[in-house]
């Protein structure tokens, strides 16, 4: 649907569309204060934030932001208060007007739109969730959830049907006729989420949505959001100052400081290769066990046995490598289990000839996916004498993770950790 729009729209610049990027932010500046454009002149542009403020009275909100966000990505904007993260998310929907630079969403330049087009674009594209919920206290939960549809001019009946649907999705069935004031914080934010989702937006903007909630509710909401996102696959831009939240939720994280991006990367990159001291400070108490995945530390198994080659070959292979057990796979490289030396010997010594090693002779072991974080593997490791096999969705054998590898990767490297 959008592709045809793009072709006919004069605002589209074809050459600059990167197919995989839904949102492209280029050289974005936001300066607060009088006559803010002059700060962008050559004279001031190079100065630091404090110097500019002293000389012109203008405050830099955002400085030369360049970001690309992919469709369906869970993108985190992280920073301390005053780092410009909330300003940036408001620029994306133009609740705050950028001073210069461009924001392209689906190839359309948001910064060049007139007011009417902008309103239409907001209605079609965005849903937004706010830190303090931003609910309408004079409306019922149902009317709150239906508000975006009301703005679009959809009939009462249709919008109530849709609103009931999303309220059920966020677990608020039965609360439709209450006012938001009589709901708890967590439930109010569910209303906020339902309101944003009712429009079925392509892009979901979330401005510190969970930072006002108490820890247990917060964790629960995060888990539910992950679950929802698995189903929806929307582009989510999520502002937070909480590193753990960022690492848990984000596909990619952009860290902001004083209105500038300091580092952009996956949670793992941020934790393992912080770009500078600021990021290092941020991630100091982040547990690597929460971000490092099995896929990154796994190694190829020393030996692999093939079920169709028969017990004798397997036994020889084991003995040659001085091993007591090894993983065994079938022809399509699917993991079958662990074959032990004694069991193989039994098979070989049997009077009748055994061609293929039968499943009954193997021991089934728990496996993990490449995306499993180390923390989730602790319980497996402690109950299991073998290394943990890593398999893909089709149960194909990818590699192994040993206890030693796990502990090695979660122990801070000497020197670096003490900066």
């Amino acid at each position, binding site marked *: 649907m959008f592709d045809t729009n793009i072709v006919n729209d004069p605002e589209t610049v074809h050459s600059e569309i990167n197919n995989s990027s839904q949102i492209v932010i280029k050289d974005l500046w936001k300066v607060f204060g009088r006559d803010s454009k002059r700060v962008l002149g050559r004279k001031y542009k190079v100065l630091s934030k404090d110097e500019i403020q002293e000389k012109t009275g203008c405050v830099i909100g955002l400085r030369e932001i360049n970001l690309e966000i992919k469709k369906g990505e869970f993108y985190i904007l992280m920073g301390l208060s005053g780092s410009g993260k909330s300003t940036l998310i408001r620029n994306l929907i133009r609740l705050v007007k950028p001073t210069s630079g461009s924001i392209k969403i689906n190839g359309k330049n948001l910064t060049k739109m007139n007011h009417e087009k902008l309103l239409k674009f907001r*209605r079609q594209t965005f849903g937004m969730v*706010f830190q*303090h*919920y*931003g*609910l*309408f206290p004079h409306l019922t939960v149902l009317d709150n959830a239906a*508000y975006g549809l*009301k*703005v679009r001019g959809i009939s009462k009946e249709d919008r109530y049907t849709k609103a009931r649907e999303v309220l059920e999705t966020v677990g608020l069935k039965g609360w439709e006729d209450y006012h938001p004031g009589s709901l708890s914080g967590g439930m109010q934010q569910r209303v906020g989420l339902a309101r944003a989702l009712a429009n079925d937006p392509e892009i979901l903007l979330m401005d510190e949505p969970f930072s006002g909630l108490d820890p247990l509710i917060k964790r629960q909401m995060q888990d539910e959001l992950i679950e929802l996102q698995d189903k929806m696959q929307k582009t989510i831009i999520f502002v937070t100052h909480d590193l753990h939240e960022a690492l848990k939720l984000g596909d990619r994280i952009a860290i902001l400081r004083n209105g500038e991006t300091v580092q952009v990367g996956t949670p793992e990159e941020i934790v393992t290769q912080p770009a500078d001291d600021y990021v290092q400070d941020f991630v100091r108490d982040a547990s690597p066990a929460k971000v490092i995945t099995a896929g990154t530390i796994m190694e190829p198994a020393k030996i692999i046995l093939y079920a169709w080659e028969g017990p004798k070959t397997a036994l020889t292979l084991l003995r040659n490598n001085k091993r007591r057990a090894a993983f065994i796979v079938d022809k399509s490289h699917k993991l079958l289990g662990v074959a032990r030396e004694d069991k193989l010997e039994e098979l070989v010594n049997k009077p009748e000839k055994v061609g293929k090693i039968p499943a009954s002779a193997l021991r089934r072991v728990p496996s993990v996916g490449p995306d499993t974080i180390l923390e989730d593997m602790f319980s497996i490791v402690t109950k299991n004498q073998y290394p943990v096999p890593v398999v893909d969705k089709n149960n194909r054998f990818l590699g192994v993770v040993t206890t030693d590898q796990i502990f090695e990767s979660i122990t801070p490297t000497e020197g670096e950790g003490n900066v």
Partner: protein
Amino acid sequence: MFKFPEVVTIPLAKGIDFIMSWLLIHLDGFFDAIGFIILQVVVGFEALFLFLPWFVIIPLAGLAGWKLVGKCKTGLVFMILMFLIGSFGYWELSMRTLSLVVASVFFSLLIGIPMGINMARSDKTEAILKPVLDGMQTMPSFVYLIPALMFFGMGKVPAMFATIIYAVPPVIRLTNVGIRTVDVEAVEASKAFGATAKQVLFDVQLPLAKPAIMVGINQTTMMALAMVVIGSMIGAKGLGMEVLLAINRIEVGKGFEAGLSIVFLAIIVDRITFSFSEKKQ
């Protein structure tokens, strides 16, 4: 003691006098038209309040006290107060005063609420309007009562005019403050869904500012009630004129009766209008 140099004079008085006489000559028809409209509204309300007999209005006041203010007892007190006014012999005059108040509040809201909305939307408008509102509230009323007389002649219309000038600032101010203090995120949420300025105003800002606006309406009503007494000096019939006559004749008791009638009216009107501002959710 230093005297201010006499050479430095700004002939503001002369200028204003000149403008006044110019307006009187050239915009005579315009003021007549305004006067006519205002008069129609007052006469309409007056006809209504004088048409309804006392045995209808007293129970109505009681019902308002019971249902709106909340307690059965309040309704009873309202009825007693109204009954007392009647027993003083001021029923008709108090109804005339009431219609003057209601008519001036009607015009004050017609002007005040849109003005307050505009004030909330632009810092510049706010900066300009604030001193004007200060002036309207603190300028001794006689200063504009006389020009009003010159434009509209004696009677109800100049009294209404002066009342509106005096009574409109609170509703403007509180509409402005009410809208400005609406939860920022609620407004942002509405905008984020692509709501137009009008949708934001009617869906979010006005409903959330309603308690503040209601306080403004209550204040405007009270000030209008205070002002109609002065209005009686330029020929608007009502309780105020009775107070004036009593003072001139040094009839202390009569003055108190008329004065108390105004107070009773004020209490009833205040409680009823205030009840709107604290509407329970």
